[in-house]
């Protein structure tokens, strides 16, 4: 482990971030009564007009959640927060005019479209030109999926998961919970009971999905939790690139977001999953902000399959997520590229797990953490090489950058090797934004804030280049906004 510390002498000024996504949508919603009991689960299932087997699965999860009690919530993460009152949350909220799922964009409430345009998520024509298919999820309901025709032509299914339950029950029955079982962890169990919507993707054998798929999530209602569930299946020899973005309005109280994402890659298939997470982080004193407890896991099930996670995490009061890959197939590949930026009182405990089961499996982990204000940033990663995983290889690199002297960065790697042929590499660095770098840039006429942004953007460049081009531009912008006021 190398560590270099460069002294910083500049004053650190902590200011409230300008959270420009913090406006309300003015849309009436159809909400469930506050609190969680069996009726809540039945209400959600009925709203979705679900078949019995789906309701039963939910109820099994709910009963487990109830039996386990709140003590079952994981406590090992480097985060602290007030107890969540699960009876004070609204578990389902749908925009009222959208009781019936829209058949096409023309059926979508124009006000809703305008709202998404404000978020920089143009659902309509302009995005079609760029070739990205979007599924937009507002609070609990998927409101619009663009570009359906072109996808259908290729045989790709991309729809709200509630629709998939109706139209593709065999795929749902086969794969839902096959990577993250409902008993996996406290938050995944909760999600399994009350998940409202999310995206479903199935790419048939040999098909290279012709366009990027994208879901935009937005929590809008006060005191609403969001529990989306995403399932992506890449059948043999297929490829898909999927993007998700998230925002939430500014609220004085905390909002809970507990999502589950499951990926399945069969033989020779590849899934590339990219996230820009910009949930409301809370104000400069730590009031409000989203509690983001997310379980994301991919099964590289077939030979030569590949799953790649790229995440840029700038939002949320608390981020608790570990997008992982189970490398089951021989020669399968798992990748995790991450930028996590925290400011003010934000806390992030994020990382990955790479579980090597198949032979000649290979994983790469590159995690960049940036801490400013009084924020705490933890990289937590597990690499396990199982007994039959001959010639497994892992490379892990964790770099932390500190801005100011009141924040913290922590690196917690767990390494478990049960096969002597494994090759492991681990590198970690911690540094501060270097005064000489800032002066060099300033001496070339670039102001301090821009100089600071350029240095930090440079630090993240290796991760951003893993994102699809448009998303990379957006990530840079998000970084710029999140860094405002961190140097002065």
């Amino acid at each position, binding site marked *: 482990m190398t560590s270099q510390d460069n002294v910083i002498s500049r004053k650190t000024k902590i200011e409230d971030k300008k959270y420009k996504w913090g406006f309300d949508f003015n849309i009436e919603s159809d909400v469930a009564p506050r609190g969680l009991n069996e009726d809540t689960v039945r209400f959600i299932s009925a709203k979705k007009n679900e078949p019995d087997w789906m309701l039963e699965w939910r109820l099994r999860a709910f009963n487990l959640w109830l039996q386990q009690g709140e003590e079952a919530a994981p406590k090992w993460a480097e985060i602290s927060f007030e107890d969540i009152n699960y009876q004070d949350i609204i578990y389902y909220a749908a925009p009222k005019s959208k009781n019936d799922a829209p058949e096409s964009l023309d059926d979508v409430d124009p006000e809703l479209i305008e709202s998404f345009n404000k978020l920089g998520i143009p659902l309509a024509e302009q995005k079609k030109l760029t070739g990205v298919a979007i599924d937009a999820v507002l609070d609990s309901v998927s409101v619009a999926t663009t570009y359906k025709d072109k996808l259908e032509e290729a045989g790709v299914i991309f729809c709200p998961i509630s629709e998939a339950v109706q139209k593709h029950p065999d795929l749902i029955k086969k794969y839902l919970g096959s990577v993250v079982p409902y008993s996996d962890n406290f938050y995944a169990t909760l999600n399994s009971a009350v998940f409202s919507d999310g995206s479903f993707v199935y790419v048939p054998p040999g098909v290279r999905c012709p366009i990027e798929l994208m879901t935009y999530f937005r929590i809008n209602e006060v005191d609403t939790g969001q529990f989306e569930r995403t399932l992506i299946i890449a059948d043999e020899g297929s490829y898909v690139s999927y993007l998700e973005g998230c925002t939430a309005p500014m609220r004085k109280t905390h909002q809970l977001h507990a999502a589950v994402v499951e990926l399945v890659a069969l033989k020779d298939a590849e899934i590339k999953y990219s996230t820009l997470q910009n949930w409301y982080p809370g104000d400069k004193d730590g009031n409000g902000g989203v509690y983001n407890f997310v379980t994301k896991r991919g099964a590289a099930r077939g030979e030569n399959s590949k799953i790649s996670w790229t995440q840029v995490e700038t939002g949320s009061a608390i981020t608790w997520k570990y997008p992982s890959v189970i490398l089951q197939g021989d020669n399968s590949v798992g990748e995790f590229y991450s930028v996590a930026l925290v400011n003010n009182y934000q806390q992030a405990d994020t990382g990955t797990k790479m579980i090597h089961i198949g032979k000649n499996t290979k994983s790469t982990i590159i995690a960049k953490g940036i801490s400013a204000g009084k924020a705490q940033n933890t990289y937590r990663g597990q690499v396990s090489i199982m007994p039959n995983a001959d010639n497994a290889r892992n490379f892990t690199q964790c770099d932390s950058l500190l801005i100011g002297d009141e924040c913290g960065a922590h690196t917690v790697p767990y390494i478990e090797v049960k096969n002597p042929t494994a090759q492991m590499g681990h590198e970690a660095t911690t540094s501060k934004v270097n005064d000489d770098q800032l002066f060099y*840039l300033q001496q070339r006429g670039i*102001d301090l804030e821009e100089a600071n942004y350029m240095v930090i953007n440079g630090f993240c460049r290796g991760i951003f280049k893993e994102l699809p081009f448009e998303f990379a531009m957006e990530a840079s912008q998000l970084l710029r906004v999140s860094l405002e006021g961190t140097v002065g």
Partner: protein
Amino acid sequence: MTSNAMLEVNNLVVSIADTRILNGLNLKVNKGEIHAIMGPNGSGKSTLSNVIAGKPGYIVEEGEIIYQGENILEYEPDVRARKGIFLAFQYPVELPGVRTWQFLKTSVDAIRKENGQDELKVREFDKIFEEKRKLVEMAPDLIKRSVNEGFSGGEKKRNEILQLSLLNPKLALLDETDSGLDIDALRIVSEGVNEFKNSDNAILIVTHYQRILNYINPDYVHVLVDGEIVKSGDSTLALELEEKGYEWVK
């Protein structure tokens, strides 16, 4: 009647931590002139160029720095840079992940904006950059590389001269630009500086050795010892110093 003075340093007293580095230094540089500041290690040469550029960490206790008729001591380094002060660094820093193209384009545009000009179009910028790159004989892939990352000492110094040429400042401060250069790199760097030079700008060369002055001919040579200029003269002073050593002026 406009003044011909580019830079006037009056009674400049500078400390770093508790140590006094410059001790009442006076210097006047006119447009069209090249001045060389020579002195032994620790005499305060680099401090002088850093303080003119506004590097944080120095305490200016007394005196003033007048640049084009204006006292610039209160200005941030980026403001000074946009007003036309350029420092070629003794040790150019590496900026991992910051592309040379992005860095130079941002810099050029910041300075153009200050002068009321529009941002350069990408194609225009690329064309100018290409000219300057050839001038300092840098490899074509320079534009894609991270700023100074993995560059040799000579490449870093040539990159500084490329920036000098691209930004076309009014006052160029060359801090030990010749140190660590082989004879070919020294020639390339000197040619770049001579090409930059005109009757409207001025150059201040800070150097330990006389060597670079064989290539760039100074109008004045000043000898700096213990934070004060102890002797000034024309270019023959540099040769005399080379022959007799710094002990001669102490």
